[in-house]
């Protein structure tokens, strides 16, 4: 828990990126909103940042996501299910809090999906 809180209070990747793919979505459960900024080079994630407000879990998850996904291949991320993603986090969550954790992951997926469409 201490770890989660310390990450929550000082997330390293909190902030914005210029010239990045970005998307902002809210968690329907609570209305909290996160904006994700993603840069991709050669089908690989090169940079991720995020801003927004949310509970510990949502911010912690956004930070974890950015730390974990940088350097990963786009297709690798696309193939992850919600369950896969939740397993990457070092905590077990009730269904409601899973929604908090999945907020940034959903935004990530939607950014990739939009790119695919264009």
């Amino acid at each position, binding site marked *: *828990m201490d770890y989660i*809180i310390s990450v*929550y*209070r000082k*997330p390293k990747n*909190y902030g914005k990126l210029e010239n990045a793919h970005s998307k902002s979505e809210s968690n329907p459960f*609570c*209305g*909290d909103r996160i904006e994700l900024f993603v840069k991709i080079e050669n089908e690989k994630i090169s940079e991720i940042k995020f801003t927004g*407000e*949310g*509970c*510990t*879990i949502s*911010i912690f998850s956004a930070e974890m996501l950015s730390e974990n996904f940088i350097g990963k291949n786009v297709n690798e991320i696309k193939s992850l299910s919600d369950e896969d993603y939740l397993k990457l986090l070092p905590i077990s969550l009730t269904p409601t*809090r899973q929604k*908090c954790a999945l907020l940034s992951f959903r935004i990530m997926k939607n950014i990739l999906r939009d790119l695919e469409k264009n």
Partner: protein
Amino acid sequence: MDVKKIREDFPIFRKMINGKRIVYLDSTATTQKPYQVIEKIKEFYENYNANVHRGIYSLSEYSTELYEKSRENVAGFINAHPEEIVFVRNTTEGLNLLSYSFLWNFLKPGDKILISMMEHHSNFIPWVRLKHFNIDVDFINITEEGYLDLEDLKNKLDKRTKIVSLSHVSNVLGTINDVNEISKIVHDNNSIFVVDGAQSVPHTPVDVKKIDCDFIAFSGHKMLGPMGIGVLYGKYDILKEMAPFLSGGEMIKEVHINNIIYEDPPLKFEAGTPNVEGSLGLSAAIDYLKNIGMENVRDHEKRLTDYAFKKMDEFDDIVIYGPKNVEKRGGVISFNFNNGNRYIEKELIKNDIFVHPHDVAGILDSENIMVRSGHHCAEPLMDFYRIPATTRASFYIYNDEEDVDILMDGIKKVRKVMKIG
């Protein structure tokens, strides 16, 4: 009031999670049920279950009698006549019934409805939706401390104002609105006065004659009764003039291809097979409350709120919403960790002052303390205070000083875990 003894009537409080008892502080959302209510439901299905009305056989006659006796009990509880008691699913349906029925044969484009900034969504959206039919809706201001601004009400009341619909007790601020006074103001303007009684009827004596309101709606599940049953009280003369809302079986006298004659109130408003079980459960809940005495319920909650306020004073970074004066508020305490400020700055995570209410609730839950967090179905009020959410603890007859103490320990844990203060 012997809370320990009361608690024994509630099977759920026998339950232990991780060896600890449940400290249930979310009765504003829904209350727990005493065995007297649970057993009544069981008894009904095991012995008397049948569809009501128009059944000639004994089970059906008895079931009808039970249903109508429940109605009488509800009526007595708020000093109304049984014919003025319409059974609905919950407060929400009661208020929707009004908005639809009024739309049918009472409201005209250009008419105005007044509600307030502290309304629950259920007393907000059904009215605001009427804008679609060119009916105006305006919002009475509240003061920063969370009182209804009566001057603003008076200013906004005008000839076009057909309906004023207000909560008796706010489910976020705890504010007890002075409905007796408001009723006079509204009626002086010849408007109809609707009271959302979801948080008053369960917690304090309510006498519809004294208030002289035209309608009041409340929910069974918030007053020890089962889910799926609620009440809309209406003055008989008005009910009589109103268009039906739901239509179908049971609510008619005659149906022919070119002629439908509706029943008199309250049956006119009860289409389809009614929830007899629910009515009986609610009636048993009312018996339970009457046995304690509603004055005592109110006093008990006042005392607990006072006690909690004193304890919470300890933490000077906690801000409590709503009136400070316990005479003017119910046992609902919404709060935030925010250096004592009601309004909250954006970029919350950038400071170590604010704690997200969902984190508060999550940490309290790990101690079996059940509080609600969020916008409490009152987003316009959240907008007013520019906050995303609050944490809310609310009291009922099964809560005591010990619960408050456990809550305080829980709050200390929140501070420690979240490293604030």
